[in-house]
């Protein structure tokens, strides 16, 4: 993996400059002057990442490198390990094995420098503060910040700045989390299901703000289980299933990978096993006399059916986007 190579180069580089000790001190205490140069390092470099909770292996050996300026969707069904991976990326939890680096640093050091910010799904707000106070408090913790007013405006909540957090709707609280994430002007923003609770306008406004910042070179990684959201707003989609990356590419590449067709035919005399053995068939459904064969190369399946079996009434249909997603992330093959 290239990220491992980058990682090693980073360490060697620091070592040659006699800064290894300095770097390790930084790891422990977060003091400046570590000698790590975030310039040129990948925004995210995950290598061999593993995490389990008891018997459950949430993340099983995950490698991922994201270059600065990329907008990446982290796509997968619930329980795929997206949030666990994000937690390790942000330094909120420790991997059982493997390494997570953000701009060449330990996540905690990148957080302490305001290089990374995150919008989490729930919680993380003090009920007794006002909207403005929450952003103001967050700003007070960083060295380099944008103005509080600007962040409130960009998140679309400057008109409710004096409202107490507990009086805000779910969508308004989500905008507030976004404003808090903007305040340090992070080089990487990580969003876990960011548009939960937002209405259609809210979603559109949110993504237009995200895209504007991406123009300035901000790296964006967002977790979602909406394929459409991933396809619309990301340059790159990383598909996760059962704690592993199962696909990584542009939206159209992902769709092409998953967008097989369904061949429907009426036939008799073949068992499920024999149907599944037809070259190119990925899965089989039998509905009485009819069979549904899912395949990427539907032509060769159809040819086989017409020439080698008694199949008739053949219909070939394309899968929708949602089917594609299900095909890539489901257990059935």
């Amino acid at each position, binding site marked *: 993996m290239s990220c491992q190579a980058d990682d090693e180069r980073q360490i060697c580089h620091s070592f040659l400059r006699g800064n290894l000790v300095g770097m390790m001190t930084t790891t422990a205490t977060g003091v400046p002057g570590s000698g790590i140069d975030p310039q040129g390092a990948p925004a995210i470099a995950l290598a061999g990442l593993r995490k389990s909770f008891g018997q459950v292996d949430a993340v099983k050996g995950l490698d991922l490198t994201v270059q600065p300026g990329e907008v990446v969707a982290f796509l997968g069904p619930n329980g795929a390990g997206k949030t666990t991976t994000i937690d390790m990326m942000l330094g909120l939890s420790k991997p059982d094995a493997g390494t997570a680096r953000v701009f060449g640093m330990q996540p905690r050091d990148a957080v302490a420098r305001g290089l990374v910010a995150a919008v989490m799904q729930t919680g993380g707000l003090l009920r*007794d503060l006002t909207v403005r106070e929450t952003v103001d408090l967050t700003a*007070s913790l960083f*060295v380099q910040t944008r103005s509080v007013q600007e962040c409130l405006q960009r998140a679309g909540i400057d008109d409710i700045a004096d409202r107490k957090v507990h009086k805000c709707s779910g969508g308004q609280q989500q905008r507030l989390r976004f404003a808090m994430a903007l305040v340090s002007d992070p080089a990487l923003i990580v969003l876990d299901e960011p548009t939960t609770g937002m209405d259609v306008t809210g979603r559109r406004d949110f993504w237009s703000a995200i895209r504007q910042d991406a123009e300035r070179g901000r790296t964006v990684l967002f977790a979602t289980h909406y394929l459409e959201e991933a396809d619309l707003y990301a340059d790159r989609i990383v598909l996760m299933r059962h704690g592993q990356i199962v696909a990584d590419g542009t939206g159209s590449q992902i769709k092409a990978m998953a967008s097989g067709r369904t061949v429907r035919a009426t036939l008799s005399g073949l068992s499920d096993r024999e149907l599944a053995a037809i070259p190119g068939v990925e899965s089989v459904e039998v509905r009485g006399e009819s069979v549904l064969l899912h395949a990427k190369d539907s032509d060769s399946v159809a040819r086989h059916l017409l020439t080698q079996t008694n199949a008739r009434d053949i219909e070939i249909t394309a899968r929708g986007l949602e089917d594609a997603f299900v095909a890539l992330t489901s257990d059935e093959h």
Partner: protein
Amino acid sequence: MTNLSAVQPIPADEPINLDRRVPARGGFSGRLLRIELARVLRNKRTMIFTVVLPVIFYAAFGATQSGTFPDSSIDVKGYEMITFAVYGAVAAAAAIGASVSVERAQGWSRQLRLTPLTGSAYIAVKVVCAMVAAALPVLIVFAIGAATGAKLSAVEWPVAMLLAWVCGSSLASLGLFIGYLVPSENAMQILGPGISLLAFAGGLFLPLQVMNSTMQTLASFTPLWGLSQIARYPVLGGSFDGMWLVSALAWVGFFFAGAVWCFRRDTKRV
């Protein structure tokens, strides 16, 4: 609804800066402290339990009395004034400490881990807030005491105030311990009655002199025994018992160590 599209974007020629610094003192700053103090002062519930209640107690049990305790030269008003000032300070410091449980329950502690603020800077902010909150009942109860004729000497006034404040503030450690130990927002509910109980058991509300010897021995092992004796030393006079200090330091040390242990467990798990 608000409209984001009307907002001017930050110009694209202002690229994201990668050269950042870590804040000094782990993120502890005057601006942060100011916001945190404002939260404390406008919390009506805390203010009622830590300022209004001690004032009412003093008005009921101290201001209505006069003269000295039988067979002594101890001024009753002065004695009760210190008692309820210490009680208010303890309640305030412990309540502020325990507020970490509310912040944990609301996910704020986790949110703070996405900022440069270090765990020790966060606790330092809580301790400073607890000290400010503890100063309020001390100042107010002493002012009312002075106005209602409590008698202390010119030296005793400032010394008694300082001791009440320091002894009370030190129980921020108890609040932090409970705040990190108890999951969810129940810490406050445990702490309110708990402090009153400790005040009775340790001889703050109930003078040790009225207890039998077994009770007195038991009292000496409770957290408020040493602290309340030290706080009342200016008015009680006599010899200073070194065990007061041992008790105070041992308990505060225990609570603080417990808080640190729970805090570490907390940040590892989350």
